[in-house]
């Protein structure tokens, strides 16, 4: 039986509890896609209303008004102004924070003027009543002429009532909140006639925003521009007049609906905490302590699951090699595809934990305090207080971190944040760092409690951060932009994190990594396997028979002989040839052909460095990292008779991996976020040159 699925869009201010409500309505029946033409993620989900009916819920980004200031807000505008669009909702649920009713209702009056049927969901009534605000809901319903439902998005209270309201909507005729005769009536009239649209406000919106609207052709835009010019249409003045008018109307309505009693107990408590948290000394100390705990937490908690995943995969590898018949297909599966999967899954515990902590900080309201603390400092480097979230997230994985830049309204600050975020040391660099640090210094304990390697690792993070802000500073001198930089945002009261939301964030960010970075990693692993398994002509066969003879003369046992053969054949493979071919370029930074191969493979994804080294050092590709490091330590440079991984070489490798943009997924994400190849190409060139220069200086100085 065909049934009509109603489309409902959730709309509301940031912090109004809209996302919590979305989670309450849809549960795990949600998926993330893209809005056409823009990079903002579209979250949709199915909500079962009754046994017969289902509604498709679209979660629109949080916005204060229909006049967009950021990319996120642009989406809301486009969806609501495109009646033919696939996302055009049948009606809207506007979620409002009752503790700030007037500002939250501004958006409501705008969408009502657009003619949308609306259900108003009142959230945070408990917070409001603690602040001494009492809302007469029946009166509000009568005044606004729409269904009004009281909900608690945190606990889920009232969600059933809302579902019932969605399934049998009662919609009164649209109310208008503006006297449209006062807002360029001639312009409205001409646009309405031109595009055959009935709605005054839609015509007015087109007059304000036509240049950014995708559904108009150039000639249509020129016609609109002509109409505006002829009528002396002053967009800025009319917008500000409109906002003032709307607030006046709301003021009158709310005077009849809301009763205020003073009780500021709670507030004083929150302010007392803020005095400490935003204190000159304590504020920064608390922030650094929080960061330290965050990293400690992520690393100590992720060790065990990471180990389990490693064991699981090597078990799987063994089992598959035994069960499946020997041959290239089996090798492709075990050494190509399986290794690729392992390289993805192994990072999930760290990424999930990092985003768990970040989302707790965001949910509690602390992240806003961090932005407040850091904005002035960040601004010196061309960044914004909001850049803090992408930069911290960049420690996990640059892909979701880059997506977090969308809340930065200013184009220049957003571009700079995108440009420098990949310099933050992401989790994929850790295995390389750990290996090189182990080669450089013996592990020991300092002052009884501090682990030397831990301290060096911490310093590497700091170096990544410093390079990011220095790069930002350079860029801010180079980029010219007159666009306004805003840092205007709500300072939310402290809240207990909603654990469900934390859970959804973990899921969402992990999936962003798996689909963003994962596809590339798998593809690279397969290409790498091909390059390492095949060679030009019969060179590999020759190398194999030579290695077999050598193994016999050295009286090696089965496993060692196999590893020796694998190493020699890899040397003769295409990968080996590439490694040798680039030796002249990488010799000045102290790299040999083996590091050359690893370099080539890790340009796609730096995760594969250790497994490539494992293959090249005859350890097999599933060797433990510690064992690979031991093998690298024992490697003697035939020219000097000294260990190959001298201080100079180890430093050179360390610095190269710290600075180079060895991640295809980051390149792809930057392209997606900036919609041009200019930025990813510039970024890639810059970071590669930086890496090469740093390694060159380090190697030549320490040699």
């Amino acid at each position, binding site marked *: 039986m065909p049934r009509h699925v109603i489309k409902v869009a959730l709309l509301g201010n940031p912090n109004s509890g809209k996302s919590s409500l979305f989670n309450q309505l849809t549960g795990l029946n949600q998926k993330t896609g893209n809005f056409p033409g823009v990079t903002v993620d579209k979250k949709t989900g199915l909500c079962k209303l009754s046994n017969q009916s289902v509604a498709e819920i679209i979660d629109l980004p949080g916005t204060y008004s229909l006049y967009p200031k950021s990319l996120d807000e642009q989406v809301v505008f486009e969806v609501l102004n495109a009646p033919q669009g696939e996302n055009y909702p049948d009606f809207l649920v506007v979620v409002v924070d009752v503790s700030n009713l007037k*500002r939250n209702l501004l958006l409501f009056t705008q969408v009502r003027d657009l003619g949308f049927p609306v259900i108003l969901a009142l959230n945070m009534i408990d917070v409001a009543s603690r602040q001494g605000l009492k809302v007469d809901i029946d009166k509000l319903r009568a005044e606004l002429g729409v269904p009004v439902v009281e909900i608690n998005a945190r606990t889920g209270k009232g969600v059933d009532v809302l579902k019932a309201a969605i399934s049998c909507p009662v919609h009164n005729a649209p109310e208008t909140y503006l006297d449209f005769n006062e807002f360029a009536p001639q312009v409205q009239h001409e646009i309405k006639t031109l595009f055959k649209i009935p709605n005054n406000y839609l015509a007015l919106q087109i007059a304000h925003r036509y240049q950014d609207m995708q559904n108009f052709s150039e000639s249509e835009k020129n016609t609109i521009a002509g109409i505006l010019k002829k009528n002396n249409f002053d967009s800025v003045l009319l917008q500000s007049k409109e*906002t003032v008018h709307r607030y006046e109307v709301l003021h009158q309505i709310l005077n009849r609906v809301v009763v205020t009693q003073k009780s500021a107990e709670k507030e004083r408590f929150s302010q007392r905490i803020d005095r400490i948290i*935003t204190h000159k000394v304590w504020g920064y100390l608390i922030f650094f302590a929080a960061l330290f705990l965050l990293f400690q937490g992520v690393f100590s908690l992720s060790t065990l699951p990471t180990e389990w995943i490693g064991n699981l995969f090597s078990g799987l590898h063994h089992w598959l090699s035994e069960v499946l018949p020997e041959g290239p297909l089996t090798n492709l599966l075990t050494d190509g595809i399986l290794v690729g999967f392992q390289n993805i899954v192994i990072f999930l515990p760290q990424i999930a934990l990092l985003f768990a902590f970040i989302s707790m900080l965001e949910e509690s309201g602390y992240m806003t305090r961090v932005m407040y603390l850091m*904005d002035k400092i960040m601004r010196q480097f061309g960044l914004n207080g909001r850049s803090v979230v992408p930069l911290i997230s960049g420690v996990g994985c640059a892909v979701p971190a880059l997506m977090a830049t969308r809340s930065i309204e200013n184009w220049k600050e957003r571009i700079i944040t995108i440009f420098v975020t990949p310099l933050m040391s992401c989790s994929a660099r850790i295995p390389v760092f750990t290996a090189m640090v182990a080669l450089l210094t013996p592990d020991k304990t300092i002052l009884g409690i501090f682990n030397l390697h831990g301290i060096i690792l911490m310093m590497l993070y700091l170096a990544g951060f410093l390079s990011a802000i220095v790069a930002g500073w350079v860029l801010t001198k180079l980029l010219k932009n007159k666009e306004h930089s*805003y840092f*205007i*945002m709500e300072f939310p009261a402290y809240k207990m994190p909603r654990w469900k939301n934390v859970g959804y964030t973990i899921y969402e960010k992990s999936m962003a990594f798996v689909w963003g970075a994962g596809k590339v990693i798998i593809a690279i692993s397969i290409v790498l396997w091909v390059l390492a398994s095949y060679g030009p002509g019969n060179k590999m066969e020759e190398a194999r028979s030579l290695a077999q003879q050598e193994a016999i003369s050295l009286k090696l046992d089965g496993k060692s002989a196999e590893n020796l053969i694998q190493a020699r054949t890899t040397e003769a493979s295409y990968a080996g040839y590439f490694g040798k071919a680039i030796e002249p370029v990488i010799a000045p930074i102290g790299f040999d052909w083996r590091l050359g191969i690893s370099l080539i493979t890790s340009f796609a994804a730096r995760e594969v460095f250790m497994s490539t080294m494992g293959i090249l050092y005859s350890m097999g590709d599933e060797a433990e990292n510690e064992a690979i490091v031991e093998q690298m330590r024992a490697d003697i440079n035939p020219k000097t008779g000294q260990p190959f991984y001298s201080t100079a070489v180890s430093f050179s490798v360390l610095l190269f991996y710290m600075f180079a943009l060895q991640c295809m997924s980051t390149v792809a994400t930057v392209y997606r976020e900036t919609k041009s190849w200019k930025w990813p190409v510039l970024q890639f060139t810059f970071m590669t040159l930086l890496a090469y220069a740093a390694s060159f200086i380090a190697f030549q100085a320490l040699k």
Partner: protein
Amino acid sequence: MREGSRSVADLKIGEGGIIAGFNNVEMSLKLLEMGCLPGSEVQLSHKAPLGDPICIKVAGYQLLLRKEEAATIKLR
């Protein structure tokens, strides 16, 4: 203009005032939407450690903004 002499950026912590208007039209659109209406009360709640951004109380909630943005809000 006599009333344009002081702005929200000049307030001391705890001090309040009444918004008269704005001296930057583009900024004013955003500030109006956030509820900074002419005639409404503002109060400076606190400042970030480096003196910028600042946090003001307006329209019944707390709003963060940079000092240069606050300077566009003129007081009566």
